[in-house]
Every structure is written in C-alpha cells, then in structure tokens.
C-alpha cells in the first residue's frame, strides 16, 4: 500500500465511454492478487474532492505497469479519461484483498461472470487461473453492442460468451440468461458487476463455490472511515460487518449481504 505519483503510459478509448489506462510506477511491485483496486485522485485540488476506486485489470511486472479500465461518467472519471500520456496521477494502492485462487486446481473449470464495468478485475484473474491450468469461460454482460469491451482479450484466456441487455450483440439478456442458454457447468464462479447481477447469481447457483467482488461508495478506501461496510449473511441485522475496501472488495459467495 503506497501513495505514489504514477505515469500515464497510455490512455485510450476502448468502447463507448470506456477507457483503458496504463499506469507505471513502483507500486506495481506490490500488486499480486488479482481483484485489488487503486484509489485515484483524478485532479489536484478540491474539484472533485474524493479519490475514485478503480480495479486493477492487468499487471505487467516486467515494465512496472498495470492497466485499469473505466467508464468516464461523472466528474472524476471524465477527468481521468482526459489524461494524456506522460502525465502524472496521484494513486493510492494496491488496496483491498483480491480473488483467492489457491483452492482452484488445474483441470477444474471456472466461469468468470462480469457485468459492465465489473468486467475489468476478472481479466488478470483469468490470466492467473489459466496459468494454473484451469479451463476458463468468461460470461460478459453489457448494456449494448457499443459498450462491449475486452472480448478479444478474454478470448485469449478461454471461451467467451457475451450478452447484451438490448440484444444488439451476442446473447440477448443478462449474464444469468447467457449461462443458462449455454448450459454452462463449472467448479468455480468468480464474479464482479452490479449488485442485482450478483444477487441473481447467488440465487441461481446456491451451491456454487467462488467469489464476488463488490462496489460501494467509499471515503478513505483503506478501512478507516466505515463508509463501505456490509452485513454478513449469517448475521444480517447484527453488528458484525465487513469493510468492502479493506476486508474486500472480494468475498466468498454468500458471505456478505448484497444490498
């Protein structure tokens, strides 16, 4: 965990509103576990004030670089998208705990289920799982054809099924529809995406082994402010909790209350 000025090596549009940024700096050395995130100050000064949490999508230890993919939507991400090659960005990271891959064994099959801007953290995860010798199917859900990204990259690590909500590309419907339609079976499920998607997955596959990565509005990103807590499924009304930023963002399926 470091606060460092990183250098923008690349910042390019990938799909409608979606950008790819490659950042370089010594912070990369600390990045091991897929699914961690960085917390980015998109501009000096107070406008906007808070950092923006963005998942690490890919890591290149040789060049001390890592990749993030993000949707330029609000003020902070729009400013981030405007950074040019060579500019410096104030980044805190790597933060949180990524996807555990120790238990998954060579030869087993994995489904990576990503929804929209939840897709990025699954990419480096997939690479790692492939290295371990697992069979990977990626099910990637997007709004429409224009917002599809990284299909080719995921193809390099396994099979890919794309679904779009409006049916303009791939399977029409949600990722759960796509998994069913393809009749996919798997030993492990790793997922990241909007909460309703994660809930649907937990409901449809109540026995599945695996992990989900969550999002929540954050203050500090390091576990100090209690902005990002969630209840546990075995104590949904009680005082036990997990912090998404520092205990997560990745949790075992059915561990925490998705809300």
């Amino acid at each position: 965990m470091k606060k460092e000025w990183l250098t923008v090596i690349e910042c390019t549009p990938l799909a409608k509103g979606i950008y790819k940024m490659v950042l370089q700096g010594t912070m990369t050395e600390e990045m091991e576990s897929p699914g961690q995130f960085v917390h980015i100050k998109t501009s000096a000064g107070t406008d906007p004030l808070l950092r923006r949490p963005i998942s690490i999508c890919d890591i290149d230890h040789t060049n001390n670089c890592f990749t993030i993919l993000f949707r330029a939507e609000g003020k902070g991400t729009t400013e981030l998208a405007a950074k040019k090659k060579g500019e410096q960005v104030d980044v805190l990271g790597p933060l949180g705990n990524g996807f555990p891959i120790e238990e998954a064994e060579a030869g087993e099959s994995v489904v990576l289920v990503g929804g929209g801007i939840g897709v990025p953290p699954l990419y480096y995860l997939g690479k790692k799982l492939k290295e371990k010798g697992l069979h990977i199917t990626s099910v990637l859900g997007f709004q429409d054809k224009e917002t599809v990204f990284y299909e080719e990259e995921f193809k390099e690590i396994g099979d890919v099924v794309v679904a779009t909500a409006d049916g303009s590309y791939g399977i029409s419907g949600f990722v759960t529809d796509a998994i069913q339609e393809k009749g996919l079976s798997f030993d492990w499920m790793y997922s990241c995406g909007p909460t309703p998607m994660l809930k649907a997955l937990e409901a449809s596959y109540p026995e599945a082994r695996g992990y989900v990565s969550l999002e929540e509005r954050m203050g500090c990103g390091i576990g100090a402010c209690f902005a990002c807590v969630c209840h546990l499924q075995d104590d949904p009304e009680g005082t036990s909790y997990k912090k998404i930023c520092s205990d997560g963002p990745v949790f075992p399926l059915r561990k925490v209350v998705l809300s």
Partner: protein
Amino acid sequence: MNLSVNLPGLPMKNPVMPASGCFGFGKEFAKFYDLSQLGAIAIKATTVEARFGNPTPRVAETTAGMLNAIGLQNPGLDKVKEEELPWLEQFDVPILANVAGSTMEDYETAAKELSASPNVGALELNVSCPNVKVGGIAFGTDPELAAELTARVKKAATVPVYVKLSPNVADITAIAKAVEKAGADGLTMINTLLGMRIDLKTKKPILANTMGGLSGPAVKPVAIRMVYQVRQVTDLPIIGMGGIQSAEDVIEFLIAGADAVAVGTANFTDPFVCPSIIEELPQKLEEHEIHSLAELQRRAVAR
C-alpha cells in the same frame, strides 16, 4: 520552532491531530507513518454497546466537501478498551476519546470507563453528531441539555472533558458558554453541517439515511467564523476543525482563536496529510512572521 501545545489532558508535540471518525482507531494510518508524530489522536466515537450504524451508501461527495452518515458504527466500549486503546499504547501520543450515546447514562458509563484507560488523555463529548436520531443531536443544539450532559459526564470522568460543538445552531456562543459553565475543560469544533444530496438518476437522496454531515473545505469559512465567535466569549481551549487541508489552514484556525486543530476529511484524500502539515508548519509560520504559537493563541482578532 517549538510547536508543542499543552492542553488539559493532552500534552501535544504539535497542534495537529486527526479528527474523530476520520482516522478509525489509527491502525490503517499506522501502515503509512509512525503515529507518534501526531500531536494527539481523536479516536472514533465509542458507544457503550457495539453499533453497526446506518445502511449504505453512507457517503456522498459534494462540491469541495462530502456528506457522511456513518451512524456511529463502532465496536463498543469493551472492545475499544480491551483492543483498540491498548494497541495504541505503542505510540507516544495522547488520545482524545470521542464519546457518544443516546442517553445521558450511556455517556456517563462510556466516559467513566474510557477515562480509566492509561493512554486516554481526555474525552471529547460528541453531542453533535447529526447522524444519530435518538438523543445526540438534541444535546448539541439545546444549551441546557448540553450543559446538563457536560456536568454529569464531568462527574463520571477522571480526565478532562472537551465538548464537541455542533454548527447546526443559530448561536454557537450560547452552547459554548453553557458547557463552559457546566465545567467543560475545552471545546472542539465544528462537527459536520447537516446536508443532503439527491441522485438525479434515482430521484432519491444518495445517502441511505437521507441526510448526513457535511465536512471538508466547503465548510471551513463556517468553522473559522464559529471558532472566532466562541473565542470572543470564552478562554477555554479550543480544538478547531472543519476543512483543514494544509498548514495555512491550520494557521487560519489558530489566528481565529483555536489552540490546536483536528484534520478530518483530508485524511481520506491524502493519508499523509497530518504528518505533511506538521512538517510544513514551522516554515509556513515563519513565512507569515509568526515566531511562536503562543503569539497566536488566545489572540482576539481585532480589526
């Protein structure tokens, strides 16, 4: 330059501490720097029983500020006494323990127990948290209730008691005078301003709790004004806060009448903000021809 400030219960190396609720119990920041550098640490509000707090989302960004409605989530008195405070003993830094509750009895119990911890130098009565619906808020906006609570907590506590004032009042000097009379050893101010943001997509408030407390640079002029106003009516030590981001901001609070300061929201954007400010302070004081903190403290700003 000697930066030390000796406040009741808080022998501070320098006038800078992190603000309550913005620093947890220090563990996260200890990964970034040695907490012994700090003037003091205001720990997260502690209540007698553990609290989960409010549903999420609990924070919302605003222009130059943020809203929070954490809802006093904390592990409860016992755990704070048995785990958090002992862990903090490894650092050479006095602790200002923030106390909250819904009844006067709660405050008394927590105050009594927390004062018994060896590294708790003083208590900070959180009578002003806008995020708790029972009690809390009323204590902070009604001078009589605030005074009664202060008097009772003073009896229960064995260390100095600071009262944290709410800015959501018409006349902050009335509360300040009331708690001073009731025996407060110091004041901390300001807590957050009650605010709200609406998400245009959902047409609903962003915070699950509807409203929350506004902090950050946006509120600094209100905080400076209130410290200044209160400094005109009392000689009690004042720990000033609200939007501090830099050594200059600290100096502005000191001139306004604060004896020391707390830094809240800025810890989220820069985890090193407190040690950076402490490092910068001597030079900035010199730049502005201030040769000792004593020069500024208690100096009424006359024009």
